[in-house]
């Protein structure tokens, strides 16, 4: 008993104050939203598009590069390939959006961050969102950073959000992985087992586009090829802050947030 108390004192109270206080700092080398300084782009250069392993960067003839954050695995290959040093990852962790097309960014576009649920859904789920998590081909990284939000450091429960053990208890489905052919049926069964109304959240580049496994015959290219998706959270994996930010935006729990960045 004494040992337990001693350890308790040593470990202290460590739950982050976010969103009431600034979030814990991300590391200096954190690879958040990629940004292209297109003023530096040289006509005819395709280095970034050719280096990108998932074709997240596309350059139409005579045009400037377009980045698809849903395909991006935040890997640094385009940054290293760019002869003009025009690409860099910002340390901005906010990436979640409501519409798939909002993930594709023309150079001049601002990212339209996720808006809150409609009035009726927000009234139903805004203060209590129970999520069933299904990994459908996820590598375990997204799962780990979804899971970490449940630990004492993040304490997701304080927002009324909880991961539940059965789809019967769930208001929403949080999905990771590209949706392998071998998980498609189980995923659709889980969705069907949830009572209406329900939301679907796709976490990570696999769940949004297939990620590194895009266009493999063994996978479907992300959740919205089989189910309607209400929230897209990009990353490989998304940082826990990115996931939390997305969930809180969906629930309208942070009023003072900017909606575009």
């Amino acid at each position, binding site marked *: 008993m004494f*040992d337990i108390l001693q350890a308790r004192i040593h470990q202290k109270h460590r739950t982050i104050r976010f969103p009431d206080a600034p979030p814990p700092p991300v*590391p200096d*080398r954190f690879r958040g939203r990629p940004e292209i300084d297109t003023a530096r782009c040289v006509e005819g250069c395709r280095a970034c598009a050719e280096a990108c392993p998932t074709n997240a960067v596309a350059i139409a003839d005579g045009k400037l590069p377009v980045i698809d954050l849903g395909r991006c695995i935040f890997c640094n290959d385009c940054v290293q390939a760019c002869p003009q040093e025009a690409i860099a990852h910002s340390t901005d962790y906010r990436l979640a959006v409501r519409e798939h097309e909002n993930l594709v960014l023309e150079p001049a576009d601002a990212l339209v961050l996720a808006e809150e649920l409609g009035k009726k859904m927000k009234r139903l789920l805004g203060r209590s969102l129970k999520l069933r998590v299904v990994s459908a081909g996820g590598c375990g990284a997204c799962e780990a950073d979804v899971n970490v939000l*449940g630990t*004492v450091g993040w304490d997701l429960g304080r927002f009324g959000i909880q991961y539940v053990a059965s789809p019967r208890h769930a208001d929403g489905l949080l999905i990771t992985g590209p949706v392998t052919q071998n998980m498609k049926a189980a995923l659709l069964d889980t969705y069907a087992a949830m009572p209406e109304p329900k939301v679907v959240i796709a976490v990570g580049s696999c769940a949004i586009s297939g990620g*590194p496994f895009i266009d493999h015959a063994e996978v479907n290219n992300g959740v919205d090829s089989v189910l309607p998706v209400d929230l897209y959270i990009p990353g490989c994996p998304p940082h826990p802050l990115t996931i939390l930010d997305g969930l809180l935006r969906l629930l309208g729990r942070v009023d003072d947030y900017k909606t575009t960045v």
Partner: protein
Amino acid sequence: MTAPSELLTTRNGEAVALEKIPRHDLAAFQRIASGAVEGGQRVASFFGYDAGELGGIDLLMVLANDEDGQLNILSTSIEGNSFPSMTPDCNQVHLFEREIAEQFGVRPEGHPWLKPVRYQASWRPGRDAWNRPGNQPIVPGSGDFYRVEGDEIHEVAVGPVHAGVIEPGHFRFQCHGEHVFHLEIALGYQHRGVEKALVEQPAKRALHYAENLCGDTAIGHSTAYCQVVEALSGCRKTVRAQALRGIALEFERLANHIGDLGALSGDAGFLPTASYCGRIRGDFLNMTAVLCGNRFGRGMLRPGGAGYDLDDAGIEDLLTRLEAGEKDAASAIELLFDTPSVLARFEGIGLLPADVCRELGIVGPAARAAGLERDVRHDHPSGIYRFAQLPLPTWNSGDVFGRAFVRWLEIKHSITFIRDQLHALPAGDVRAVTGPLKPGHLAVSLIEGWRGELCHVALTDAQGKFRRYKVTDPSFHNWAGLAYALRDQQISDFPLCNKSFNLSYCGHDL
């Protein structure tokens, strides 16, 4: 003992010309391989590949001689649609043979439990080991399961979707009340076609496949991949790069071991350590992010070296974090092992004794917990581990306690290793240039990931492109160990047993 000409001897991280690999007829191949395993060698990898214009398939086996630090390679070829199974004489190949059957549509006759491994279509259209119609989808988890019959016997089926935030798999228990007679595990739900993609997709995706094969082992698998490329291109990496890779690999081990000890504590109903370790695991993931910007080590590895260097401020930052992490981990984990109610739940549960580990080819902490001194860093060292040796802790109980306690000992050694390396980081560049891959060669790369041995084998074609890329995650060896450990246990102890192994679904399913 086998004559030298029967096997080609190489070492971890070396390339050999394909033509030098001895080719035997199937009977001789099986006799030599069984003999080597009886003599104490281990099947590190065993796989098929297209024989080329001849149309048949070739089989290649990598045997690990842990005592001498050598890898022994031999090959054979198969014609027709079947071959006599070697499993009855050599249990270690049971899953490898099932995999060969599934990937190439050839039937190992006499295999005692010939079921699909991943419920994927054969790579050779029109050939299927189970004669399933080619126009119908393959349903994962289908087919017969091992059954125990009796009036009071019941079957418990769990998965593929589980209650927690974990990957999918199907578990089928044969029970009498709480008592488990048999557990059969059906996987494949996570199959993403990675091995095939490593050959067919553009080379720029290869490193990212390695990083995403198994998310909690991104450093381990990407190190194994880089080592393959470096061996095949004759690249010499700098000592500084090797040290940074070692640091990253040990951080990965620390984060996972600490997280698992917390989860084991939670499954035993002891919440203090469960809560603390969940957070401390994150602290160690954040240390990896200091190295390379990503909590799971993505971007840290590059063929030829490392993707990121570390400056003095970074070293200082990591040393400070490491010291705090060490104190927090010690406080949380010593509490776990000092609590009698926890020990009562850990001791004598989920037994996997040394002889079974040897027979099944179990690797990693699960083998060391049963007393086997089996660790790639020790037996087949590559990179920094040739210069800096870690102690090899073992325990002799082979139970949940053993698997937990070995991990705690490894945590302490990994922290010491990282601190030593950070204090004496060699000078120099972090990345060397890798040239084209040698055509017609093979390279074997072993890395001791936190779960155990990762084995990557690559074969190149005449143009120096991958012709076959074989990945063996430690989970591939160890899932059978978990099934064994559940025998004669209470079904309510399954979570505890499962977590004490914490095997990867996607690492197995590829």
